[in-house]
């Protein structure tokens, strides 16, 4: 072969080196690894539509969503309970309660004010009942004539008293 002769004649050391060089062969289990790789690649390349209709896709997705929802729920509940938990740090004063305390009306969140409010309400009811009882003897003037008549009788009685 002409080319080999060229190599042999012009580059003898290179020729000897290349002829001495051992041929490389694939590692052990090359084919098994190749087919395994091919299978895993095929699985990865499933279309989105195919993935959407497989349980393999749905089960982890649903599980993930459930865990996330539970975590959010637990977080929210924990946040709401933190004011009532005696083992927590000192509860912070709620601004809305402070504002409500300053207002003069019923406040069911403060026991002291509630008691005060109840006593005020019962005394008010007592006064109202007394007024109603006293007012019960009063004549009710429905027309202007009745009013005039009443005024006349009052005037007469006043004058008779003066005489």
């Amino acid at each position, binding site marked *: 072969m002409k*080319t080999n002769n060229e*190599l042999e*004649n*012009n*580059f*003898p*050391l*290179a020729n*000897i*080196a*290349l002829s*001495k*060089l*051992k*041929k*490389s*062969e*694939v*590692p052990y289990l*090359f*084919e098994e*690894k*190749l087919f395994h*790789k*091919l299978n895993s*690649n095929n699985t990865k390349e499933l279309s989105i539509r195919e993935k959407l209709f497989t349980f393999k896709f749905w089960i982890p997705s649903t599980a993930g969503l459930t865990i996330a929802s539970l975590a959010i729920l637990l977080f929210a509940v924990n946040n709401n309970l933190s004011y009532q938990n005696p083992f927590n740090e000192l509860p912070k004063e709620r601004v809305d309660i402070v504002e409500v305390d300053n207002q003069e009306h019923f406040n069911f969140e403060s026991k002291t004010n509630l008691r005060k409010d109840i006593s005020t309400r019962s005394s008010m009811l007592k006064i109202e009942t007394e007024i109603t009882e006293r007012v019960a003897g009063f004549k009710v003037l429905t027309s202007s004539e009745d009013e005039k008549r009443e005024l006349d009788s009052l005037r007469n009685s006043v004058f008779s008293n003066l005489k």
Partner: protein
Amino acid sequence: MLDFQQNDNVDSFTILVKRYKNPLMNFVHKFVGDYEVAADIVQDTMIRVFKRKDSFKPIGKFSTWIYTIAGNLAKTELQRKRKFGSLSLDALSDDEDKPFQIEDNRYRPDVEVINKLTDEMIMEAIQKIPPIFREILILRDIQELSYEEISEITNIPNGTIKSRLNRGRSHLQSILIKMTKD
């Protein structure tokens, strides 16, 4: 290959793997210089053949098509290594037009020098050849492919292949002389 392409026959693909795995491994290993990396490249080549079987045109030879895929993957790997600085491509220039001093043809190695040559030394010397010459040298002097096949694989005209081959051999000769003298 045609059976695999037309009938999607896995057995035909297995036959192709068996036939080409070792020649490709030999080529890629000598080209990139790393056994593990070479094995991965050969596997990736086979995977590409499997997936892109439809892009193979029966007008050409299957052997040249598979060598082109392997060669391109190997070049990509070399570029990647070069980019991250983990591979020394040697001080030798890749520039084809730059004049290169041809070794003295009268040099004849003696038995002592020949005995000194180990596989590791030869591999090291091959890795010091610039990649554009190295690829042609391996395809021609190690894989023993014809100029026409090499031209088809590399998409380079015959004349350029011959000049690159000469440059590659010359590089190898000078590197080996330097190594055996040290």
